[in-house]
């Protein structure tokens, strides 16, 4: 036994082993490639800096502090032309996020409905949904955006058509909504006994909004406690106490009371001067972008949902039926929880797609990040490289945040293996 150890050669490392020894060769190749890659990027960066210097341009983000000088039509925070390019970029960023969130919600609702309905036993419904999916996902997004925008601007009446005794157009829904070729005007919520705002330095927060969010949150929490209690009683006694009227009271009463206290009323749009004034103005660019992105991506979500549901084996449904569950409950309690595991990961990609596709906003003049920072600001200051890098960084961060949040959700619904 003692002799066996001596039959192996001693472990001596020779440089040639880096190339000829299988254990080290792959490592050598990786290191060499890494150095080549780093050299390549170093050359690119150096090339950029040299060329910038040759053009007499420096690399600086000081332009973000300069006065912007241009106006932005849709602003979620206070902004005027005397504020800085940095502020304008933030206004654009908020507009990007707004349309991205709206489109994600629409895409999810449309997608889930269409995906479930496409599996319907009703031939007509399933057929219609197939047509929807195939039409929308096979025509480029930009065209959908332009089509909806064109319909809104070309086919809707101008505000002047609402004017005078012989007006050719009238407002909808008891004179509360005006659909014009400049956008849709809807009533806005107003508070006659407002609690005011909190000044956060660079932006304002409405205390009314905070109060509403707090009350709704508390109501939902209280309702959950109520249901948990009911379940506990059911487990102990076998009889579930009636909770529906308590739930309604808990959910509805506090918020109604708060709205009454705040003096909630609606501000209606009315024709004044060139345009409608009052109410909330949903611009055509927002509507076009929102609906086009929502419905286009909805088609992809529908396919994700369908594949997720089909991935759950038929035996699960049959087993649920055998236990006496009705089809609705089967879907909710058995199929969907398992289907979500398959649906969520591709859904993350669709949300990311929507967020990135909002940069098509420029086509219809929606003032998103691409149009403010990446458009007008770059143009007025001539800082293309800085502006583009900053914009890419912002989109990157947003996308990573979305995918991070969705991954957390995915971890919660995925198969728990114990």
């Amino acid at each position, binding site marked *: 036994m003692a002799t066996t150890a001596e039959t192996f050669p001693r472990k001596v490392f020779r440089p040639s082993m880096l190339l000829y020894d299988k254990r080290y060769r792959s490592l050598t190749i990786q290191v060499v490639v890494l150095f080549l890659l780093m050299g390549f990027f170093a050359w690119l960066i150096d090339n950029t800096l040299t060329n910038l210097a040759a*053009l*007499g341009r420096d690399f600086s983000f000081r332009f973000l502090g300069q006065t912007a000088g241009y*106006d932005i039509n849709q602003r979620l925070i206070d902004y005027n032309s005397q504020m800085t390019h940095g502020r304008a970029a933030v206004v654009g960023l908020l507009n990007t996020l707004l349309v991205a969130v709206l489109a994600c919600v629409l895409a999810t609702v449309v997608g889930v409905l269409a995906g479930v309905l496409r599996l319907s036993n009703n031939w007509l419904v399933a057929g219609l949904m197939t047509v929807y999916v195939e039409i929308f996902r096979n025509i480029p997004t930009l065209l959908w955006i332009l089509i909806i925008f064109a319909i809104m*601007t070309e086919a809707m009446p101008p505000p002047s058509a609402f004017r005078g005794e012989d007006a050719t157009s009238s407002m909808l829904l008891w004179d509360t909504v005006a659909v014009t070729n400049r956008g849709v005007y809807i009533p806005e919520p107003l508070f006659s006994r407002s609690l005011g705002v909190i000044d956060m330095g660079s932006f304002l927060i409405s205390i009314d909004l905070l109060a509403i969010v707090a009350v709704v949150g508390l109501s939902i929490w209280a309702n959950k406690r109520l249901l948990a209690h009911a379940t506990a009683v059911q487990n102990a006694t076998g009889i579930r106490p009636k909770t529906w009227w308590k739930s309604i009271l808990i959910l509805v009463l506090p918020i109604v009371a708060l709205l009454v206290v705040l003096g909630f009323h609606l501000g209606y749009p009315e024709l004044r001067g060139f345009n409608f004034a009052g109410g909330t103005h949903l611009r055509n660019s927002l509507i076009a972008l929102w609906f086009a992105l929502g419905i286009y991506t909805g088609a992809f979500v529908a396919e994700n949902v369908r594949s997720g549901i089909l991935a759950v084996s038929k035996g699960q449904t049959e087993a649920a039926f055998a236990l006496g569950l009705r089809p609705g409950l089967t879907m909710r309690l058995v199929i969907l929880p398992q289907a979500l595991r398959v649906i969520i990961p591709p859904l993350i990609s669709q949300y990311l797609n929507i967020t990135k596709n909002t940069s098509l906003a420029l086509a219809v*003049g929606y*003032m998103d990040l691409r*149009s403010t920072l990446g*458009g007008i600001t770059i143009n007025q200051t*001539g800082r*293309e490289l800085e502006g583009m890098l900053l914009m890419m960084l912002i989109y990157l961060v947003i996308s990573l945040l979305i995918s991070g949040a969705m991954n957390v959700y995915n971890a919660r619904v995925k198969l728990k293996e114990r």
Partner: protein
Amino acid sequence: MNKTVLLGSIAAASALVAGAASANTLQEVIDRGEVRCGVSTGLAGFSAPDANGVWQGFDVAMCRAVAAAVLDDPMAVEFVPTTGQTRFTALASGEVDVLARNTTWTFTRDVDLNLRFVGINYYDGQGFMVRGDLGVGSATELDGATVCIQTGTTTELNLADYFRANGMEYEPVPIETNAEAQQQYLAGACDVYTTDVSGLAATRASFADPENHVILPEVISKEPLAITVRDGDDRWAGVVQWTFFALVAAEEMGITSANIAELAQGTDNPEINRLLGTEGELGSMLGLDPEWAIRAISAGGNYGEIFAANIGDGTPIGLARGLNAQWTQGGLLYAPPFR
């Protein structure tokens, strides 16, 4: 992975910069055999392709004059349509050699963007166009109006300043090209279209019912529209600049495309002789041959002829000479002496 993406995009951006500006554009143009000229994406009278796909217009004629002077062929021009957003990048990256695209000469663009504005070929100002049936007679009545505007232009800033200074509200509708703006305005999606007055006149001329649209009397800014080249190539800047001055001087001296052949035989006027190369060596100082100016002027006529043929009273655009008359006629056109 994400780092790789970021660096990759830096790479893409730097590739853009890497194509920039060699210092001898004149030689490059001669070797290539054509001038690359940045123009608008289509503005009737200034630069737009005609029915045969040949670019025509006031700005186009400037480029043709440069091509004639340098290459002896006014048609040796490749026209590159640029938007308000892409024009400076196109010039800086070397995609075009000269930019003749209604570009306003401003301090920042000249100094910070490192452009070289070689000559103002049209003195303009920003104005407003509205429908006649709106009953608006002055820009001060535009409070609350929806205004269509080309984004990435100086007009955007002037507009903000003007409405602010007059304490009026407005709703800007940013638009990428003149054609889209026209479509939006005609659909009634905006009450007002604002751009340089020359551009408004050109746009109105292409409407089916030009008489129903009014250009308001207020001119809210100075817009010296200049021919632009890259900074850092003085020889090429000189060629473009003096080609333009040759067109201006030709009008002042009465040299037209009709009589130039006769005048090129030699005259009693020494400045005409110097310009047309029968006397002195101005051409070789530019790096060109003595007949450069003859060719430039023959290409489309002198400044006045180009103006009259493309945007003057006799055309649908119908612009008066106004500020763009010779200094001897009460205008601002003034070419330095050829000596």
